């Protein structure tokens, strides 16, 4: 039995990692969607976290916890810098400004010699474990649940429903937006670092526009009523290709079809249930 389990764990380790890491990314998306903002910058924050962590491990041999911390702090600082001008924007304008940031990062990584250009960074030691990923996922999830049940959560929901009204009612809109962006950047950076140390290799094209859109789709498919929705969405979209492998050339066709049908019938996401509030 244990041999079977070992085998299973070995064979599906990459998938198990991916479900957890994508769950974190989906939560980083949730942090901004929960206040009604659409930022597509998560791929950039993830990339920054991944590169910072890989460079620290490869060049300076920092201990892993310190590396993970740096992978959260640096994207957070970047979020603070770009947050000022971009957070004046709303809706699609914010989404597209953040897409521009994703693209500029990709162009920079390809041109920079320190990051190996298109060759990326290889030989990153594997330090991520299943326990670490899911432990962190549980902590972040718990954090969001606690927030959702607090006064802060009520302010967030008010912003999502009607930003102007929420502002009139005394919600500090700029602080909320900046806070959400910074939290989102930290989680994405963490996910990036975990991914880099699970995979031996990272390259600039891992953090592209397509990836940004995939991250949004985790959250939207799952539903943003509660933090559980995005995590569920990430799990489904990560596992779906695994179940469709036997379709070979038509795998992506069916994958797309399932997303279309799911959205048409469940436009608010799969999990529409909301967390009850206390206090």
């Amino acid at each position, binding site marked *: 039995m244990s041999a079977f389990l070992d085998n299973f764990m070995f064979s*599906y380790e990459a998938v198990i990692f991916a479900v957890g890491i994508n769950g974190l990314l989906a939560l980083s998306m949730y942090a901004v969607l929960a206040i009604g903002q659409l930022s597509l910058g998560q791929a950039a924050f993830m990339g920054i976290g991944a590169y910072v962590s890989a460079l620290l491990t490869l060049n300076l041999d920092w201990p892993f916890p310190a590396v993970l911390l740096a992978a959260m702090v640096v994207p957070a600082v970047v979020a603070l810098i770009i947050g000022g001008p971009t957070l004046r924007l709303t809706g699609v304008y914010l989404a597209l400004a953040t897409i521009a940031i994703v693209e500029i990062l990709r162009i920079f990584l390809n041109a920079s010699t320190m990051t190996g250009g298109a060759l990326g960074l290889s030989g990153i030691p594997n330090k991520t474990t299943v326990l670490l990923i899911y432990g962190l996922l549980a902590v972040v999830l718990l954090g969001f649940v606690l927030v959702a049940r607090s006064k802060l959560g009520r302010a967030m929901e008010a912003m999502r429903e009607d930003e102007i009204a929420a502002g009139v009612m005394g919600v500090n809109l700029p602080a909320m937006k900046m806070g959400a962006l910074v939290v989102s950047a930290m989680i994405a950076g963490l996910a990036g670092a975990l991914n880099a140390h699970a995979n031996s290799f990272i390259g600039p094209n891992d953090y592209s526009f397509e990836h940004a859109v995939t991250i949004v789709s985790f959250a939207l498919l799952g539903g943003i009523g509660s933090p559980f929705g995005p995590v569920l969405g990430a799990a489904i979209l990560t596992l779906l290709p695994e179940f469709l492998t036997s379709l070979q050339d038509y795998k992506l066709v069916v994958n797309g079809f399932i997303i279309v049908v799911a959205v048409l019938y469940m436009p608010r996401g799969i999990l529409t249930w909301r967390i009850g509030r206390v206090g």
Partner: protein
Amino acid sequence: MAMRKFSFLAFSSLGIAGCLMAAPARAQDIKIGAIEILTGPNSRYGLAIRNGFDLALEEVNKTGVLGGKKIVIQYEDSAGNKDQAVNGARKLIGLAKVPVILGPTLSNEMFAAGPVANGQKVPIVGTSTTAAGITAIGPYVYRTSLPESDVIPVTLKKAQEKFGIKKVAVMYANDDAFSKSGYDVFKASLDKMGIQILTTETFGSKDTDFSAQLTKIKSMNPDAIVVSCLVEPASGILLGARAVGIDPKVRFIGGNGFNSPKLGDIAGEAADGTLVGSPWFIAKDDAANTKFVEAYRAKYKEDPDQFAAQAFDTLHIVANAIDKAGAPESDKIKAALQDTKYTGVMGPFSFTAERDPADTSGVVVIEMKNGKFQIFK
């Protein structure tokens, strides 16, 4: 078109049937693994490689290995994504228990999947991974594709002898690992040969417009233009060069990516005079190659490319190694691979101690004439 569509359908239904029936119906079959890009924007390379493997497999299984056992390939699709390549490697090793893995398609995928196989002491043999540092991943990582550093100097030397080029302009796609590592080799070789680089221009591998870079290059009057990229941008560059009026006498010198019949199809006469070095060439006149090209055309109704040819040889090399190993066990196969002596469609083949191809005598320099490549003399 209809034919193509049909063969695609036939393929996929075979694939589905194969998976549903759990392919190795007979216990004495030897199952090996392959990770290739079978779907998505880069599937062209993986599908050509699969064709090459399958064609060679037919030949091998006529007699079988280890006294008549048949080889079965379990394919895992990487879709060009390193995470899925890792995934594929883990499933092949953990579930299918394959003793040896072929692929993956891209160097980036190998940098991610190679360490997994190496860690489990399962030989992994890249057929199309040309970047620097691939075999440095570990002692179980092999490749049969000549790294660019073996091919490019041959091309440049020939061009220098023939045309006495002294100053060149360099162009490369800077967002793709294959093109970037080709560029690194070009740069090192040019520096070593004392050829002056007037300018280095970059572009994206999905770009279609190169007129700005070419206009700048034109104003510097280079003797030749050296380019490292895949065939799609390469065709666009050749056509664009004519459009901005670069003298047709200025030769284009390409890396491995240029070696595709597509170049002539798309760029037509604009491609004339282009020089490319390659480990394999479709019209290479030897018996093994002629036989391969004929069989490939008969089976797939199209011309093979270099990826298919490399895959074809690789499957033979691996099958021979399994046969010589005496048992389908990873370490025995590794030992047998190391001793490989094989002559295939790419010429004589053996591995260096660093598990790269040892023999560069198969490298040919080819020249585009009237939309077709021919051997450059």
